């Protein structure tokens, strides 16, 4: 064979070798080289003359690029086992949509609303948010990739009971789900509003120099109210994901209501919610205004307490009756 042909094949084999795993390089390259030599010899025998460089180039071109040839020898790798993809997508969805977004919205939006320069703070938060989002996706993906890499098998994947499959959701379930979702959104919005309104606040200043000075009770109930509102919101979120979780839901709802009533009681006991200072009011006028505002807050708190009692009573009644919604009729397979 002419030197140029051997040179071309050698260069081709060298390029293939580059992409192969070290342990298999020599073996694979020797086999490809032998195959190419056999092919060249056969063509030369058929044509009755040696192949020139162009002919060999055509053969090599037909064989495919060195990268393509080498990749056909490499194991077909995947990051995540296709069998695990539905679980991976579900976990990502839960982490990103149901935990990550609300959590970060709370962590970041609160300071954004309370910060003196919300635009600057928002920009900073968005940068952090995306960094955290990429890290979260990366971590979830890494965990699933490792599960696939080490061939972790889920023992209970085949150990399932048809009787324990979740019921087909009926219209009532769908409505309950939306109700809870709405509860979560409103609860979360309420928490954000509470943070923006009351974060390290001791007074409200109005035009004309009038200042509404908050009583010390507001500072005392700031964190309990925030904690309770968020607990309720996240509980609604969980309930929207699992609307059939009724008995547990009732118990937790009663617990939240009891805590709410403790806060209501603390507010009512404190009584003196606000004072007014500044402004051009006479002493009597000022006293009337303070009494009116405190009275309004008093009635609002009482109303909130009554609603809470009704809510707790409903949950208690449900729990005592052991009421469960009737399962939806399963359509018969016709």
């Amino acid at each position, binding site marked *: 064979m002419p030197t140029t042909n051997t040179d071309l094949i050698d260069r081709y084999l060298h390029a293939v070798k580059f992409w192969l795993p070290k342990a298999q390089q020599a073996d694979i390259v*020797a086999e*490809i080289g*032998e*195959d190419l*030599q*056999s092919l060249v010899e056969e063509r030369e025998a058929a044509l009755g003359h040696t192949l020139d460089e162009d002919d060999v180039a055509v053969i090599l071109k037909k*064989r495919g690029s060195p990268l393509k*040839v080498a990749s*056909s*020898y490499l194991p077909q790798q995947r990051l995540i086992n296709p069998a695990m993809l539905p679980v991976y997508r579900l976990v990502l969805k839960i982490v990103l949509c149901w935990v990550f977004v609300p959590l970060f919205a709370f962590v970041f939006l609160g300071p954004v609303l309370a910060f003196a320069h919300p635009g600057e703070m928002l920009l900073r938060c968005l940068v952090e948010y995306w960094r955290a989002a990429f890290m979260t996706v990366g971590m979830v993906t890494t965990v699933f990739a490792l599960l696939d890499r080490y061939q972790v098998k889920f023992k209970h994947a085949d150990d399932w009971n048809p009787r324990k499959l979740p019921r087909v959701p009926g219209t009532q379930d769908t409505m309950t789900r939306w109700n809870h979702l709405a509860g979560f959104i409103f609860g979360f919005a309420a928490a954000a509003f509470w943070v923006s309104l009351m974060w390290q606040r001791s007074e409200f200043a109005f035009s004309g120099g009038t200042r509404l000075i908050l009583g010390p009770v507001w500072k005392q109930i700031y964190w309990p109210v925030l904690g309770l509102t968020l607990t309720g919101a996240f509980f609604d979120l969980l309930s929207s994901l699992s609307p059939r979780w009724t008995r547990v839901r009732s118990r937790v709802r009663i617990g939240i209501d009891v805590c709410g009533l403790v806060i209501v009681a603390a507010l009512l006991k404190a009584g003196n919610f606000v004072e007014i200072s500044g402004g051009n009011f006479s002493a009597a006028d000022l006293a009337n205004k303070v009494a009116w505002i405190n009275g309004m807050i008093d009635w609002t708190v009482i109303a909130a307490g009554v609603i809470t009692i009704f809510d707790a009573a409903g949950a208690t009644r449900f729990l005592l009756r052991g009421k469960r919604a009737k399962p939806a009729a399963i359509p018969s397979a016709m």
Partner: protein
Amino acid sequence: MHTNTASSELFDNLRLELRRGCLVVAVLAQLYTEHYGYALRKALGDQGLAIDENTLYPLLRRLESQGLLVSQWREEEKRNKRFYRLSPLGEEVLPDLLEEWRQMTAALERILGGRGIASAAECGGPRKEEK
């Protein structure tokens, strides 16, 4: 144009899937007798089953790593060649695989025969149900 390309790609993918299992059976069956890579490819091609080098050699390595084939480098006609043949495990597995293959082709023939599809030309679309 776009539809033609898409359907062509789809056909290529389906063809690839269809061939994948057939090639394993063909290669194992052919290696009842010892062959080196190039000769095996020629033998399969001569019998109507052309196989790309980039498919055959990785397949041979995979079957060898699964213990179905054994290989040996040996000099022939002044060149080192790698000869493959069925391993004892391959000889044990192949008859079962061929039986499975026969059952599948028989079932497929029945399905195609039952629908009156005797040739590719008749595969233009599903037949209308007879009243």
